[in-house]
Every structure is written in structure tokens, then in C-alpha cells.
């Protein structure tokens, strides 16, 4: 484990290619929901906890979690790392590693409540970090985001008993083994104010309760809650390896997060187009489009065949700029959406949706492959379509 004490060498760079590996994934059914106040107004975690609790029977107590955006205004330019440690040795090793590569502005235990039902808790700590100048100089061609991602993968893969489960700025993932409403209370989420919340209740079929395996999956400011199974996992994983993404978490949700990171952050695709890459229109539909659009979508699909997410899914992908709700192309998992004023809501079930938003201006069932997109208004907007 000594190697983890040194700054990761070039093998951890995102532009290095990964040796082909065998594929792993898990399977699960689930409940998801999300809410976004596009005007940036804040709401505490109580509402989203009630919504996910309403779908209690969609999970089996083996995992629940939340993502919240806008919760760390005092540290908003620092990467907020949420870590879980199995033991003190892992913590000591990780902290000495973090100090070698990052400036640590602040660190503290993640506040939790004493809840009887939440058992076998790891040590939960958060750190507010920025890459050291020395590291930036060494990787002068990488952004801070790239450096952070490389270090997250490095810690998760090499330090036994340590796991970074949240690494974005001014946001955080909170998750663990238990029913989601209990996890929410355990993390005292009613004490956080956020403009964007997502939640997940898990029903895994082939995994033991590991805290790191709960959703959301978080990398940088991306958080993904996912109901479904990615049948294209093996393909997506090897495709992502071309771009230096190392799937280390044995969960198919991981590839969804990396795909959005690749398409939006690295390849600068508009959100709509990133959605069209992961859930593209049928070739037969593309053929009927007007020429410019047809050519655009044909090219998109030809280039990003490896990014197509196949299999049944409904996902809520959240990021600093807003929220995306998306179903697989033939809608094999449930998702409903609603709007009221500047607020957007999505959930697996209408009851949970109406619990968050009793009298919506608009409520609809998004068709397969048609994204629900919410944008924080302070973010620069991008318009799609040729």
C-alpha cells in the first residue's frame, strides 16, 4: 500500500489507456426522484426524504442515498470530498496521501444522527480540497477536474478500506446501507439547504450491503441515481477505457456518470445531445429528419455507438448546471415529471411526485429516450438542434 502514499504517476492520468479488463456489474431495481429549483431557491432535505420514503417498497433496505447541490456556499470553490473509511488505518493512509497532493482547506466528520437501524457505519469524513500547485505544474495540460478525478480513482482503487463517494464542488452525495428515509435522517439532511436534490432507494439483487455501492454514484459534480440495468455495460466500459476512465466500482451506474462527464465536460456536447448519444433515436426515425438534423444525428450516433446505454433504465443525472431525467429508448422503467413555476420534479412514481408537488402546472410521462432537462438559471444556457 506504500504506493498510495506517492503522487499518482502517469498511469492514473485520464488520457492513459486502461488495460482491458474483465467486466463486472451489478443488477438492481429501484426508486428514484429529484427536484430542482431553477431559480436557485433553497429547500431543505425533508421534502425529498418524504418523497423517497413514499416509494419505500421499491427498495429493500440494502441501499439509499441523496445528492444535494448548493450546500457548501462557504467552500464553494473547493472540491468537497466525502470519504468512507472501514478503519482508522485507511483514514490515516488516505489523509497523508491527500496532504501530499491537495491543499486541504478544511476537514470534519460528516455530521450524523444516532439511528438504531443504521448499522455497521464506516467512518465518514469530508475534506475541502484543491490540487497543489506542484501537481498542477506537473500535469499542466490537465484541468483541476481531471486531476481530481484521477486522484479519486487512485484512492478508490489502491487504498484498501477507503472510498471517495463524493468529489464535486458545492455539492455532496450522502449514502449508505439502509432504507433511504433512514439514510436521510442519519445524515441529518433536513439541516442542509439545496436548490437541487436527488434521491435513491435501492433493491439490489446480487450485492451484499456495501456503503459504497449505494446510489448516487458521484464523480466531480455529477451524481447519478439509477433504476435499471445497463445491458450494454461491457461495451460502455470498454468504450470509456479509450478515454482513460477506469471502472473500479463494479456498478453499472458508474458508466452513466462517466459517459456524461465525457460527453458534456470533455466533449462539450449540449446536454440534449449528450442524451441523444446515450439514448439515440432509432435509425428509422433519423432517416425521416430534415437533412441537417439527420446528418447531425447520424454522425452523433456513428461516433458515439459505444455510449449508447442499452437495457431498461430511468435515471436522474444531476450536475452543477441542473438536472436530467432520462429513460431508456423504449421506456422499460417508470418515470414521471412535473413542473410548477421554476421548479422541476421527477420521480419513479406519480404518488411521490405529487407528494413533492401537490398541484403541478404540468405533469407528464416522458417518452423513452426523451430527456427531461432542468437548468439552473444562473448557468449559461445552450440550445441544441442544427
Amino acid at each position: 500500500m506504500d504506493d498510495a502514499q506517492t503522487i499518482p504517476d502517469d498511469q492514473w492520468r485520464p488520457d492513459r489507456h486502461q488495460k482491458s479488463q474483465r467486466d463486472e456489474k451489478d443488477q438492481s431495481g429501484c426508486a428514484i426522484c429529484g427536484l430542482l429549483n431553477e431559480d436557485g431557491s433553497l429547500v431543505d432535505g425533508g421534502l425529498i426524504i418524504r418523497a423517497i420514503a413514499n416509494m419505500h417498497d421499491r427498495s429493500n433496505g440494502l441501499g439509499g442515498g441523496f445528492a444535494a447541490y448548493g450546500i457548501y456556499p462557504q467552500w464553494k470553490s473547493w472540491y468537497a470530498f466525502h470519504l468512507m473509511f472501514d478503519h482508522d488505518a485507511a483514514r490515516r493512509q488516505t489523509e497523508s496521501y491527500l496532504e501530499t497532493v491537495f491543499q486541504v482547506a478544511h476537514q470534519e466528520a460528516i455530521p450524523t444522527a444516532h439511528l438504531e437501524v443504521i448499522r455497521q457505519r464506516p467512518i465518514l469524513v469530508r475534506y475541502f480540497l484543491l490540487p497543489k500547485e506542484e501537481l498542477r505544474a506537473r500535469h499542466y495540460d490537465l484541468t483541476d477536474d481531471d486531476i481530481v478525478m484521477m486522484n479519486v480513482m487512485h484512492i478508490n482503487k489502491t487504498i484498501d478500506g477507503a472510498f471517495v463517494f463524493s468529489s464535486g464542488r458545492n455539492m455532496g452525495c450522502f449514502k449508505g446501507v439502509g432504507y433511504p428515509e433512514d439514510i436521510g435522517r442519519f445524515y441529518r439532511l433536513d439541516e442542509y439547504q439545496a436548490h437541487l436534490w436527488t434521491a435513491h432507494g435501492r433493491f439490489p439483487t446480487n450485492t451484499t450491503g456495501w456503503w459504497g455501492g449505494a446510489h448516487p454514484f458521484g464523480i466531480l459534480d455529477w451524481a447519478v441515481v439509477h433504476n435499471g440495468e445497463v445491458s450494454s455495460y461491457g461495451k460502455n466500459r470498454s468504450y470509456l477505457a479509450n478515454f482513460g476512465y477506469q471502472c473500479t466500482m463494479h456498478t453499472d451506474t458508474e458508466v452513466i456518470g462517466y459517459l456524461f462527464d465525457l460527453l458534456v465536460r470533455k466533449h462539450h456536447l449540449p446536454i440534449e445531445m449528450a442524451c441523444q448519444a446515450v439514448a439515440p433515436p432509432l435509425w428509422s426515425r433519423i432517416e425521416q429528419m430534415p437533412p441537417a438534423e439527420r446528418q447531425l444525428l447520424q454522425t452523433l450516433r456513428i461516433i458515439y455507438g459505444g455510449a449508447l446505454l442499452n437495457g431498461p433504465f430511468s435515471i436522474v443525472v444531476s450536475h452543477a448546471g441542473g438536472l436530467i431525467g432520462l429513460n431508456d429508448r423504449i421506456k422499460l422503467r417508470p418515470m414521471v415529471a412535473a413542473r410548477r413555476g421554476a421548479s422541476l420534479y421527477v420521480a419513479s412514481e406519480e404518488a411521490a411526485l405529487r407528494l413533492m408537488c401537490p398541484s403541478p402546472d404540468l405533469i407528464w410521462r416522458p417518452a423513452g429516450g426523451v430527456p427531461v432537462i432542468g437548468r439552473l438559471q444562473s448557468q449559461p444556457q445552450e440550445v441544441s438542434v442544427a
Partner: protein
Amino acid sequence: MRKWLVEPDFILTRDPDRCINCQVCVRQCANDVHVHDEEADLVQSDSEKCVGCHRCAALCPTQAISIEKASLEFRPNGNWTADRIRAVYKQAEGGGILLSGMGNDQTLPVLWDHMVLNASQVTNPSIDPLREPMELVTYLGRKPDRLELNRDANGKVSLATELAPQLRLETPIMFSAMSYGSISYNASFSLARAAQAAGTFANTGEGGLHKDFRPYAKNLIVQVASGRFGVDPDYLNVAAAVEIKIGQGAKPGIGGHLPAEKVDAQVSATRMIPERTDALSPAPHHDIYSIEDLRQLIYGIKEATQYTKPVCVKISAVHNVAAIASGAVRAGADIVAIDGFRGGTGAAPTVIRDNVGIPIELALAAVDARLRDEGIRHQASIVAAGSFRSSADVIKAIALGADAVYIGTAALVAMGCHLCQKCYTGKCNWGIATQDPMLTKRLNADVATRRLSNLLRGWSLEIKEMLGGMGINAIESLRGNREHLRGIALSDRDLNILGIKAAGE
């Protein structure tokens, strides 16, 4: 006249109670097995000449003919098998190289038969292709890393990427290179027409492009092989893509030889060589002695076609196939076709056909992994070839990483080939591997086209069923998705190279 020690492969029996002495078999057999004895007014047969093609039996109106393997047993010997003993007899008789047609017929393990596919249960619904869309569309050609967009002042985006030329296939199955000359006009014509009907491609092989097939050129891949037969700027430009043939799975490392008897007026015009001369393809391209020379030829062809056609490089699966494929991609190939050691041929020295090269399963897995490790997998498509016997073999190849496959033998079988392995004699009784007008007219082009189309349709439907079973509705999600394969009775080493888990894992 019987040669000393050379024994027949088959025993042909005619049931005298059934035979009506109609002489159909006499007319059908190009190998002169059946002769009509004028004096006795009786049909007689010489089993020694029988190649086991079943033509006579298939056409005999009274099912009077039965053909069995000759049961002249040697003393059992696991080392000196009957085949090996007979081969020595033959060679001692003639002193030459023994020839064979079609692919390697040895009983080496077929790894496709040691791989099984996945299907959905409970957590993941299977998809019924009769109710839901199921997409097999495949694009072959070089892909860029990423999409580039233009953004105008209002943030409106438009396409900036100019995609390299691509082949669009409605189904990921193409017809492998089979030259006009090695196969008959009707066989070539049927392959071209069936490819067009199915929205896929047929490869002309190295025999040039007959003028009659030009209307189908949009669905034809033309080949540039070491003999350069029929190659001129027009040939390169009418086709959908150009393939440089470096090697062939059935005979890696050696050239080709179309005997003069097959070079009639039409073949001579198409190949651009004198009539009734041997068409010899040298073993190497004499302008390619290394990878940089290959690059020159690839770019020579791209220049000649103004960069409007994908250029494919076909190599045989040999030991270092992964490195060779990587070199070909770096040299500019948009498609790399890999031909495994069970691939067919019109003629090859038997010893080479049966002993040189490696199985396509391992070659494909190695090439796909190597290109991914080097981060250049998207720069070229991989087409696998070398004996796909069923849609299951095809879908397994796709899961291992192939973008599409070439079928040759299966296409010939669809047209009536009985795998008698005598293609090099020019006496194909089924009218396929021959230029003898008496024989070629037996293959009706409309019937053959329909049979080929049916085969593609049947296999495509089966692929859709299997995809749907896996919960996948677009073929690109299975491509290189080895998670959907498991190995049975394979060594750890094999599993490792194939990059798959064992069944039960």
C-alpha cells in the same frame, strides 16, 4: 483406371430395383463417375472418382443412389490415421503438392462451440423483436474520437465534424471475397444482387469486376490483391470500398493460382489477362515488403479515390495478428478484415490449409483488446472472417468485438455447395466453383439470389431474437460486450485471451 494403392474416399451404390436407367446421373457428374455402357444399356459407376458432392443423388428421380464413406479400414492407429496414410500414397504417386478446396477440415476445437450467450431474467426484461424495434444497422469505417460542433452567436449548434467515408450495413454480415473466375458468373452475380437486396456488401475478390456487375457496385467491395487483376482507376472508383488483400485464412503466406482452364474469354476480360493463361497471384505484394509500403498503397488508393471510399486491409490470422492489425490501422486502414484459419478457398495446399494460422475467435479477441489498449479501436472497424456457420457464430463474434463478419462458405452452401472440397478441379457439379458452361448453367441466378437473401434474412432474424433475449435493442451495444459471453470447457489461458468469464462466474 485405378492408380496403385490410391483407394476411393466413397462407395457409391446404385439400387438396381430403383434405377430406371434414365442416365440423369451420367449427365450430372462432371467427374465421370457414372458411365452408360452402350452395349449392355446399363449405367455403371466408378466409386473411385466420386468426390461426395451428392449432385447425382440429389437429381436421381428414384433415389436409387446412396453414397457412403469407404469402409476400407486400416488397422486402427491414432497416429497414422487413414487420411495421413492415403495422403502419403497420393503424394508418392504424383510427387506434387496436395491441393484442397474450402477451409480447414481438421477436428481442432471450434471455440464458438465453447462460448455461450446471456439472456435476461427478472431484473432486466427481454425484448421481443416482433413488437419492439431491434437495430442491426452497422457503419464500417474510421470514426473520430469525438463530435465537433459549430456554435453561432445565439448558441445554436451545427455539425462541424466531417466523417470519414463509411459503409452502412443493414445487417452486420457481408459476403467474403470470392473472385469471378474462382466462382462462376452466376454465383458472383447472385452474391452481388443478394448483397444489394439485403443492404449489405459483397466482396469481388481479386478477380476484377465484370462489366455486368457494375450496376451493383454500390454494394460491392473491390479487392486489390498481389496479382492486381482487373485493377484500374475505374474499378477503384465505382465500388463502395476497396480492400487490400494481404492474406487469406486458408493459406496465409502464399499466393494464388487460377488455372488456365478457368480463364475463359469473360474471365480474361475481367481480370485483364490473356485468355487461357494461368492467373498467378504472388505470395507477397511485390510493392509491400513492410508496413510503410502498406501505408503507401493505402494512401495511393485513397488518393485515387479522392478519399471517398473506406480502405480495408485483409490479413490472415497468424500468431502476431494483433500487432499486424495495429500496424495496419496506424498505416491508415479504415477497416481491418481478419481471416481465421478455417476460412475457405478455391484452392490451397492442404498442408498449409490445415496447419497454418490461428482460429478467428482468438485472433479477433486479441486484435480487439490490442486496439483498445492502444486507444485506436475507434480508428478502424474490424471485420471477422473464417468460417461462420450460423447466426450464433456471428453474434458471438460481435460480442467479442467484431463490427461485422464476412461469410464465404456459408454463402456457397446456401447456393448448393456440398463442401466436397474439390473447387480447385474446376468441375463443381453445383455450378459454383467452375467456368464450364455445361456446369455453370446449373446454378440459376434468380434462385441463388433468393437463397442467399433468405440466408441473410434468417440469420438477421435470429440475431434479433438473441439480442432481444439479452435485453439489447441495438447491435452496437453488444459489440465488444464480452460480459454477454461465457466460456465452457476452456482453459484459463483461453478464457483470458478471449477476455470472457467461465460459465457460472
